[in-house]
């Protein structure tokens, strides 16, 4: 199976390539963009929180729901842990999207990770994926 044809030539006028996260096709607008972990979004929003809520400024519904969401699902609560996870995942030669999905979903088994992020199956064998997940879980366990 062929995996990513990132820049598919435009075959005809008005041709739109369908986005597909399983094959890492995110569309022209997002293909090269930096994906954020949920934990990173939490850190960014927390840092902004003061200036957003002070005075008579009211936050938007989208902002509030995103804030609640990242607080619920941020796996790494502390800034240093997030940095460490980001660092060691950066060494793995994965796409930004896969890195963020790994950190967001925090799978425990290689099988699970491959089922949820299908593009991983072609890049990593079970053993190396498992050791990567183990390392991430250890970091998660020992965060303060």
């Amino acid at each position: 199976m062929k995996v990513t044809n990132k820049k598919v030539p435009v075959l005809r006028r008005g041709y739109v390539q369908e986005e597909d996260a399983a094959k890492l096709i995110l569309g022209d607008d997002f293909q090269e963009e930096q994906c954020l972990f949920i934990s990173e979004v939490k850190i960014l929003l927390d840092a902004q929180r003061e200036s957003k809520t002070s005075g008579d400024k009211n936050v938007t519904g989208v902002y509030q729901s995103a804030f609640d969401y990242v607080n619920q699902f941020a796996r790494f609560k502390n800034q240093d842990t997030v940095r460490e996870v980001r660092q060691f995942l950066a060494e793995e030669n994965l796409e930004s999207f896969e890195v963020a999905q790994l950190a967001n979903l925090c799978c425990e088994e290689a099988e699970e990770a491959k089922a949820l992020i299908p593009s991983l199956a072609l890049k990593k064998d079970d053993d190396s994926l498992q050791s990567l997940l183990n390392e991430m879980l250890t970091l998660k366990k020992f965060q303060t």
Partner: protein
Amino acid sequence: MFFLKKLKHTITLHPRFFGPDMEDFVKTKLYQDVEGTCSGRYGYVITVVEVLKVGKGKLIPGLGSAEFDVEYQAIVFKPFKFEVLDGVVKNVSKMGFFVDVGPLVVFVSGHAIPSDMKFDPNGNPPCFQSEDQTIEKGTLVRLKIMGLKMEPTDIRAIGTIKEDYLGMIGQ
């Protein structure tokens, strides 16, 4: 997926704001205009992180207002087809259930729920139940997006939990 994305926006400013604090007005207007918006192309703009560049103002002939091209960096949330996401169940009915994934609402229809899960209308609150999992309001679930419909001001999504490793998240 959350992204840090550079975006552009054009701000139109009324002449009464011209003056020393003009740049501040432009920024305030940018926050008002773009934060909390949603478009099919860029998804939900959650918050502006940084204003990178405020262009030179350009007067609109015949109006007196000025236009500013502003570049900014924002946190955006855009869902993709076949992406796996976690969410919180908001509403359960016999047709299926709705899941909040941040600003996005995903509908999981009865056909996309494993067949051993049965709807229990008499439960309090109403729930989907099987031997090993219960889905009711407030349950955390992991789902996969199967379809997206981009509307001008909103994104509608349908999801599934009828696959391996999807469904209720054990705490």
